């Protein structure tokens, strides 16, 4: 069992977003968190990533509470949130080199091939702030192509991507799952027609 959520509850202000959420993520699984806007999808992901403490319940990584095994957990976690963590002053390559290095990886040569794979050819020397929203998203998602973490938590990964970008991402998800990785994501896209099985967790808007 890679990641478990036990009786998770989140309260924002006066409102209970969700309570008693349980999920068991094993390797090879893709979990899609669904629900209307404001139902607490992002909050759930942030709780699972350990960025937000749950009001009640616990998140376990390989059976151990994530607060107790923080460094071991983050060694194997890749989280791309709503704000992707791409520095706008730096180029795509500089951004990716940083994230590779802090994951313990190193590019032996400038990662042109990687950029080609995510459709950023010819844009490698341009600061990210001068690229479009979709292109910036692609830089962040390019991390998925070299990352060797087992668990990916992605908040709306398909946002701002065009059709080809979405197809690329699906292809990459499939590889990751085939290699024993696991993915938790939020999306309004219908993933049922994909070639990999999708576990779904639906959050309802609570008043």
């Amino acid at each position: 069992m890679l990641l478990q959520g036990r009786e998770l509850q989140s309260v924002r202000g006066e409102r209970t977003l969700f309570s008693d959420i349980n999920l068991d993520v094993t390797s090879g699984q893709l979990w899609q968190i669904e629900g209307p806007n404001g139902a607490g999808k992002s909050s759930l992901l942030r709780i699972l990533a350990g960025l937000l403490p749950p009001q009640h319940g616990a998140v376990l990584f390989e059976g151990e509470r994530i607060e107790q095994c923080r460094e071991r957990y983050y060694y194997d976690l890749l989280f791309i949130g709503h704000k992707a963590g791409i520095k706008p002053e730096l180029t795509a390559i500089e951004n990716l080199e940083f994230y590779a290095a802090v994951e313990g990886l190193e590019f032996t040569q400038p990662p042109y091939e990687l950029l080609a794979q995510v459709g950023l050819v010819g844009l490698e020397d341009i600061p990210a702030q001068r690229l479009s929203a979709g292109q910036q998203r692609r830089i962040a998602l390019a991390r998925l192509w070299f990352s060797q973490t087992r668990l990916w938590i992605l908040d709306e990964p398909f946002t701002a991507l065009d059709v080809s970008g979405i197809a690329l991402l699906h292809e990459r998800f499939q590889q990751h799952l085939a290699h024993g990785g696991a993915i938790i994501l939020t999306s309004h896209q219908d993933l049922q027609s994909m070639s990999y099985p999708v576990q779904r967790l639906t959050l309802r808007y609570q008043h």
Partner: protein
Amino acid sequence: MTEHVTRAKAAITTGHTAAVKTTQQAQRVVSSRKVFQQIIRRDLRVAMRQRSDLLNPLIFLLIVITLFPLGVGPGPDILGRIAAGVIWVSALLSAMLGLERIFRDDFRDGALEQMLLLPVAVELSVLGKIVVHWLLTAVPVLLITPLLALLLNLPVQAWGVLWLTLLIGTPILSAAGAIGVALTVSLNKGGALLSLLLLPLLVPLLIFATAAVEATLAGVSPAGPLALIGAFSVLSVTLAPLAVKAGLRVSVN
């Protein structure tokens, strides 16, 4: 851990990580030292691409210092007596100007979240941010200190001590400043609150720094106040990362 190895190999055979190699063939290692270096490198690089942000506090400092003789009159004895205090007060205020930069941009673009998710102690990454802030804000001030001292006609025998107070006192500004910014970064109008929060804490620093210079001018040893500033400095640089970590946890919620 053999699983990692097989996974890495599998990935390489599919050609997707062809341009990537793990630092050690068998097992990727995330070392604290490397993460620390990477954060410093990236932040310096980012800062070099927005130089105007770096220059503004320095220009502010220079303007204040050049205006002072015009305001209080160019009498060398008056200027010499107030020089250390004026330089320190201006340095303090100019430090406040650019302080938010420590975490504000990282908060906006999500790099702060990513920093909290690194598989090394958060305190270490925070220390990296504090070091970068010190390098970018205090080192330029240290470089122009002789010019400031000259402009205010500070007697030459006190230059060294003034410089020393700035050298060991400015890390306190960066470290304590980081705590304040960590607490206020998620607020929209945190600027005024930040100054209110920090300036009272920095008053002792101001008092001891000017006391050290005055002692030198009076022909007494400045060792006492200097030792106190040194103690503040060590204390704040070692303990601030812990407080910053707690502050950031609250701010990213």
